[in-house]
């Protein structure tokens, strides 16, 4: 583990560079000079003909920027909630999907597409059903006898299976010519769905959620020792557990609403972060947030730039994620570093 490296500075610089790089790539060919000129003109330091300025503004600020912001938010939220879940469940192999939030959100989106097709309705229903699915999971755990990890996992598996089955019913009921492609289209996930208005709505709650999870970092450290030990260290185990699940669920559901289903980020990024900075959650969670943002910026840039057709981002996160994960697993033979 590398200590003594100024991590905060490094990560901040990395994020800024990633954002700037993402803003400068895209199908519409812009030279670096154009972008630099634009930034100067925007700051009032350079003159530029109005047409050119408008065009650059349109591409960089109106088209690319919301997408970049979306990538940052979604990547950070997924990675942080993944790390938090891994701590709460004392298991390095869990991800936000565990409690059923993605299955619920997918089902919500499917029925909204069947019933209405209006995008706002789809996003809202996806969010609500994602949260409902986790509530169902927790409810099942309570029914089966409590807040222990095994019970929660059980509840999550049951809830996830239930909503996946409901999703299949919805797909079956959808006609193959029209609604079914629309559902499949949504399920592939894409960062193009979010526009600046939606982003303005969600940025504060999501940022707050990430901060809240980081704040519970030490409690999560204690929790990963074992329930009894955490209690005897003064940690209110049940409260912390449910709070973390609630916050992580809310921000994961929000990412589904923003961008559809994007997998792998919540699973692998915390591992990469742990490799770099160790398992202490007060540092791990913000690091995961930053690395998740960078990862998603990179994959989204590839997704929308490589061909004239967009490569579904879920495919890319898996494609990039697998070799990263293999690398991590190799190092992890010594214990989940």
């Amino acid at each position: 583990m590398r200590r003594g490296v100024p991590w905060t500075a490094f990560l901040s610089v990395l994020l800024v560079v990633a954002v700037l790089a993402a803003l400068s790539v895209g199908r519409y060919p812009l030279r670096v000079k154009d972008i630099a000129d634009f930034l100067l003109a925007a700051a009032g330091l350079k003159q530029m003909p109005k047409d050119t300025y408008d065009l650059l503004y349109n591409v960089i600020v109106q088209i690319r920027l919301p997408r970049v912001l979306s990538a940052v938010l979604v990547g950070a939220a997924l990675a942080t909630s993944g790390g938090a879940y891994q701590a709460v469940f004392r298991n390095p192999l869990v991800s936000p999907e565990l409690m059923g939030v993605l299955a619920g959100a997918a089902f919500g989106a499917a029925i909204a597409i069947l019933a209405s097709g209006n995008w706002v309705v789809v996003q809202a229903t996806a969010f609500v059903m994602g949260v409902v699915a986790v509530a169902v999971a927790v409810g099942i755990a309570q029914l089966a006898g409590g807040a222990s990890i095994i019970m929660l996992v059980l509840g999550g598996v049951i809830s996830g299976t239930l909503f996946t089955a409901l999703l299949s019913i919805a797909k079956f009921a959808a006609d193959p010519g029209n609604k079914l492609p629309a559902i499949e289209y949504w399920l592939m996930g894409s960062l193009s769905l979010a526009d600046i208005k939606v982003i303005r709505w969600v940025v504060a709650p999501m940022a707050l959620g990430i901060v809240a999870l980081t704040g519970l970092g030490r409690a999560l450290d204690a929790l990963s020792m074992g329930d009894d030990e955490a209690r005897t260290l003064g940690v209110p185990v049940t409260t912390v557990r449910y709070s973390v699940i609630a916050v992580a669920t809310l921000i994961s559901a929000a990412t589904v609403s923003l961008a559809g289903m994007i997998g792998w980020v919540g699973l692998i990024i915390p591992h990469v972060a742990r490799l770099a900075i160790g398992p202490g959650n007060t540092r791990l969670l913000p690091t995961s947030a930053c690395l998740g943002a960078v990862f998603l910026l990179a994959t989204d840039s590839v997704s929308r730039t490589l061909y004239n057709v967009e490569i579904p981002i879920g495919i890319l996160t898996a494609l990039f994620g697998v070799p990263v994960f293999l690398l991590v697993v190799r190092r992890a033979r010594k214990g989940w570093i």
Partner: protein
Amino acid sequence: MTSTRVRRLCLSCLLAVTALSSAWGREITDMVGRKVTIPDRITKVFAADPYTNVLLYVVAPDLSLGLQPGCLPFRPEDRRFLRKEIAGLPELATQSPGGEQAQVNMEEVLRLKPDIVLAMGAKGANPMRVGSLKRTEERFARINLPLIFVDVDAIADYPAGIEFLGDLLGREERARRLSQYARRAFAQVQKAVAAIPPEKRVRVYYAESADGLATESDRSLHADAIRMAGGNIVHHGDIKTHQGMEKVSLEQVLLYDPEMIISQEPEFATNAYHDPRWQKVKAVANHRIYTVPRAPFNWIDRPPSVMRILGVQWLAYRFYPNVYRVDIRKEIRQFCLLFMGVDVTDADLNEWLK
């Protein structure tokens, strides 16, 4: 036995044999060359996919057992264009053209006892085509009903397909009128399009989703109508699947810079005109987004049906109003009356032509 009785017996036997043989029906050759025996009188027809569904509705709606749900208009206000007779019929699940996906319930079909089953099938040695014919045949062989393939693969095939179906179902007169109209309409469109040199062809982007970022490539079957009407589709690419709906980024659309956008979802036009991100696209800035009407079926795609005879004219009118000189209002009226059996109002026409 008395001789009278013997005579009566022979007569009844003769009559029985004649009756039976006429129930056995006649032999016809379908459009892919298969010989099929069908009953003399056909009173009920099951159309096994969206193409034939709409075709049957147009040629002989009274013989139809029901409409496929995917064809039916989604919005209630479009349902008024459906014929009254058909409105009460059940929604029947069918298979996709080519038979890859089938939601058709065989027992349900059997229960309804159609006299024949119609399916889309095209001639040709193309292995994909041969495969889909086989699939459909196998599927319907299980219920032992006469299966007839109708070739309406390309828009240009419609006149022949309509006439074939008319002969088959005893609606020759009607079929002739429909196919004559179609031939005339196609000729008009083709004449107009031929007069436009390739470099002057309108650059069109086909937006299929509400966010406008799902589209078809220029070679996709879903864009047939646009091609026929002389549109120059901006999105190029190999067709991945028949389902289509390829995703592009907004920047890509910006790069394509289409002059006109043909949109399937009305929501797209409303949103795009107000969305700052789309303003730099010429088509949006010039307010040239045209939403495809659905009255009662989609005029150009999803499903790609006989409505395209009208759709192609509507597109040609949009693309080249100065060259395609027809009274489009009259054409639409006539088509709807002739094919759909509905009167359209001026308000409707204004809506579709705005």
